[in-house]
């Protein structure tokens, strides 16, 4: 029975942990601007992250090797170094966006200017990384993140014309006043938000930390298959809220309070309190994962001792990298940079960088000398190969689109 409860809580925290600042901003922005015409990208992204995370978790469980350890081993130290530089920079941007998101959520509850809260939020993130046990951390913020289900309640309460809502999903088209380049740019942003690389760094490193073995593969699949789809539905609920409330009022999402406005207008103060707690938990949980990922990627490339389980004294350089990265993110957030803009850049560049880590994982998942009978099956390889082509196409299109649309203006 205890095992069942463990699995159940695991799935719930996977749902709660799926949405982060990138999903909140991307889905609300696209809902407000493109109605439901980009909803299909979320579906593609969720299937992609399921394939990607399941493979990374299986590789970590069977070979005991996390992502960046494999990136260097399979691509060589030189290309691995360039890969590390790009991934670390994007992870740094995401961490900055998440910390700013935590501060904004608190400021909306307390009306203290969010810039004053940023340092406190960063110290709180560090304290949890430094002291709180891994499972407790995952459970608390994963379960609190479930408060975001209030977006789904809002959509249900508004009682929209469902087939009109679904028509956007099933027959997507570029709205007349928008040009296809901007449509594609926001599609890539949504795709990057759904398939965030740091989730895979954290997911595979967590599997090694928790000493997963072949016995845990079943639980890994359940977590991914039952946890991510509802997370994807939650993202679509955020998009639907923006489509139903913000779009008719000609509101484009530029700040986090606009994202939570539809819930307040529909469910009042109670709904607002719940959604703000949900945003706090989701962004705080993601800040923990990105802070740890900063340490994971460098330690795993250089072969240092790493890990959240061991006391900090046994993994000193790992924790030092986390402290320095968190401090740097705090300064960048305090530099008056627009947090929503930083979030946009982090998810778009995440989309562009996906092949860098997806490609080596796909190769190792096909290496019998590592995976034995857990090597990828034919069907999984077919789907994974299609995604590799999609990821490379997205990666090649991102920078040009960013220039053409001046970052989605």
């Amino acid at each position, binding site marked *: 029975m205890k095992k069942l409860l463990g699995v159940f809580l695991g799935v719930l925290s996977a749902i709660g942990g799926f949405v982060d600042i990138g999903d909140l901003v991307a889905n609300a922005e696209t809902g407000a601007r493109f109605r439901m015409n980009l909803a299909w990208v979320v579906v593609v992204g969720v299937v992609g992250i399921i394939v990607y995370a399941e493979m990374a978790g299986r590789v970590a469980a069977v070979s005991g090797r996390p992502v960046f350890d494999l990136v260097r081993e*399979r*691509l*060589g130290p030189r290309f691995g170094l360039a890969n590390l530089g790009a991934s670390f920079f994007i992870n740094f941007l995401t961490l900055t966006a998440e910390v700013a998101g935590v501060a904004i959520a608190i400021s909306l509850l307390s009306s203290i200017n969010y810039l004053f809260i940023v340092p406190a939020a960063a110290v709180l993130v560090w304290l949890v990384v430094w002291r709180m046990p891994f499972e407790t951390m995952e459970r608390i913020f994963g379960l609190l993140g479930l408060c975001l289900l209030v977006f789904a309640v809002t959509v249900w309460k508004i009682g929209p014309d469902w087939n009109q809502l679904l028509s956007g999903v099933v027959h997507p088209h570029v709205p007349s006043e928008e040009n296809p380049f901007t449509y594609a740019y926001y599609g890539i942003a949504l795709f990057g938000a759904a398939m965030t690389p740091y989730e895979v760094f954290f997911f595979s490193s967590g599997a090694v930390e928790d000493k997963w073995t072949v016995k845990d593969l079943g639980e890994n699949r359940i977590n991914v298959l039952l946890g991510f789809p509802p997370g994807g539905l939650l993202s679509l609920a955020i998009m639907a809220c923006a489509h139903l409330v913000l779009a008719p009022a000609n509101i484009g999402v530029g700040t986090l309070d606009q994202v939570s406005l539809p819930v307040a207008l529909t469910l009042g103060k109670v709904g607002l309190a719940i959604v703000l707690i949900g945003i706090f938990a989701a962004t705080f949980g993601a800040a923990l994962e990105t802070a740890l990922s900063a340490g994971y990627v460098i330690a795993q490339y250089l072969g240092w001792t790493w890990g959240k389980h061991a006391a900090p004294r046994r993994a000193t350089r790992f924790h030092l990298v986390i402290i320095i990265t968190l401090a740097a993110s705090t300064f960048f957030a305090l530099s008056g940079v627009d947090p929503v803009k930083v979030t946009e850049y982090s998810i778009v560049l995440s989309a562009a960088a996906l092949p860098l880590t997806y490609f080596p994982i*796909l190769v190792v998942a*096909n290496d019998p*000398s590592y995976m034995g009978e857990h*090597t990828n099956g034919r069907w999984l390889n077919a789907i994974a*190969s299609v995604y*590799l*082509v999609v990821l490379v196409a997205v990666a090649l299109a991102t920078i040009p689109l960013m220039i053409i649309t001046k970052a989605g203006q």
Partner: protein
Amino acid sequence: MRISDLLASDVQDAGGTSLGQVRDVRVVQDGPVVGGVQAAFRVDALLVGRGTLGGRLGYHHGQVQGPWLLRMLLRRASRTVRTIEMTQIDRWDDEQRIVHLR
């Protein structure tokens, strides 16, 4: 001497024309027993040619088979890799990093 010097070496035949760079080094654990425990690893052959990535990822002399798309792509890139036994080597100038064949 370090294996990275050997891996960076250019292989030239007796006439001095280059056959490509050393891509990988095959070692065989059949040398004299060392430390009373295991046999030593003897450098047995060099893999020379152009395609690096396919070999490094395990498609060429490793066991990686799938997915089909990558196997096709990477197999073709490392088609020109050739195995040169150590017996065919006259000498290895590790300063200039050139392997001279007989």
